[in-house]
């Protein structure tokens, strides 16, 4: 049901997104959902494809801007590494943390099998 579509033919550095209905396909949404560990029904795929394409269409307004030479801002003000002295301070109580886990065993989080899965 979740069929991936590869982004073949588009270089990673290509700065211009496709226009209009070409912007986002149903296959793109299915692929992205799989990357995000979400499973969508056929009806949800249709709905999300239209809605996400509408948001990306709105984003077309910045495509016309000449942004060459403008540096990106990832954060509101410049932040260098923040250091503190390497001193042991208070830490969370392990039992208190594990008590909130769906499953715990022998002081660890317990999960279902991780071997033998499809990659």
């Amino acid at each position: 049901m979740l069929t991936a579509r590869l982004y073949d033919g588009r270089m990673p550095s290509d700065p211009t997104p496709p226009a209009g209905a070409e912007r986002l396909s149903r296959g793109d949404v299915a692929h992205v959902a799989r990357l995000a560990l979400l499973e969508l029904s056929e009806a949800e795929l249709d709905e999300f494809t239209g809605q996400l394409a509408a948001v990306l269409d709105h984003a077309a307004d910045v495509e016309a801007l000449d942004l060459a030479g403008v540096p990106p801002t990832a954060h509101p003000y410049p932040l260098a590494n923040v250091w503190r002295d390497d001193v042991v301070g208070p830490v969370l109580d392990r039992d208190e943390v594990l008590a909130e886990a769906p499953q715990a065993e022998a002081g660890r989080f317990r999960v279902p099998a991780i071997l033998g899965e499809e990659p």
Partner: protein
Amino acid sequence: MSGAAGYVAAPPAGSARDIAEAVGRGDRSARDVVDAHLVRIAEVDPELHAFNLVAADAARAEADALDRAIASGTAAGPLAGVPIALKDNICTRGVATTCSSRILEGWRPPYDATVVERLRAAGAIIVGKTNLDEFAMGSSTENSAFGPTRNPHDVERVPGGSSGGSAAAVAAGLAPVALGSDTGGSIRQPAALCGVVGVKPTYGRVSRYGLVAFASSLDQIGPFATTVADAAVVLDAIAGHDPLDSTSIPEPAPSLSAVLDEGVAGLRVGVVAELMGEGVVPDVADRVRAAADALAAAGAEVGEASVPAAVFGLTAYYLIAPAEASSNLARYDGVRYGLRVDAATTGEMMTATRTAGFGAEVKRRIMLGTYALSAGYYDAYYGKALKVRTLIIRDFAAAYEHYDLLLSPTSPNTAFTFGAKSDPMSMYMNDVCTIPSNLSGDPAVSVPFGGDEAGLPVGVQVLAPALGEATMLRAAAVLEAAAPTPKASAEGVRA
């Protein structure tokens, strides 16, 4: 008849400042104050649904302990006995913190947020956790997994969002003050729609430790209150450096309460032209112009300012915030906390858990962000959005060469009816005036300034450069004093 007058009410024990003074002097017990609010909550919250959880027993016990401490001579804090409501994405040790999401339903954090510790140290009493759009993604609280909150001004209308529960709680007198979080307007927009004061501080002014992350370069905690003075006293209590938040500004936060009465004489205030255009309903634009006139009458020099890149803020935000959210929300995988849906393998368990645990809007934003960050699209979408963020910061800096403060609508419209903005893009447009401050990291406040033709409250937004909270709140106090009473409220009629 849709409105059911009577849900809007002053807090039953007066303002936070009045409560702290009376409790500190021993004139009134904290227990009495807390009980008065719990009675009010029991009366009206079944209809409003401002709260996800009311911590009645814990609040009474904390109040009793405070009363004993004050009776034995312990100095009372600036929020002594003041009930406060917390948005349910702020961690409270041992008390469920859900983010209004099925995926965290029932989770009890093993630690308190820094703001919670600071509020308690100031004497505040936490009365409950308030409803929000799931993981703070939304502008109406309609995205809550536990049902929407209703606007106390008209229960057929939304309170705004995402901090709609906190805004409604303060507007209905369920708590004199509350905390929310603001990533793209989530404090200011619901404050405007509910007719209360809401402040988004400078990014880094208030510790985010213990705030469940949505978009980490934009999120900021701030107060709701019925008065500017109450907002200031709460902000004074929670602001300042916190070593547990590496983005926290490493300098002391000067007292805001001390300077509120200094007025605006000689200050230069610019009305942002780009945020007064198409899409802003005429009643709201009229109120902003009236607010500008009020500031001028109080001695400010008022002109028209230009922040040209502000119009691109919405686009940049709806790429940056989902991109950060897609990364932040990867942690909800059924392993360490919250929901787990059993499956044969860990991979299947994670997908089943996330599919069952997240609502539609959260899934939409996770997918939008994942797409914007994916190979082949990163530069075209996320990369461009980060450059637009630079333009907005530059344009604000240019505007602040001519002006001390800027003025705009908070929201382009007043409170809308449930379901009116079911198309995601029309809902996102609600944030067009508030988003630029999150992208720049600057502070902004929404102050009630009259109402529209139907009597619904209108909020006016005052913006300031980074760390300009004191000047910003001085202007907010002037607007508060000059604000007209909303028409329909004055007549005792609601739309």
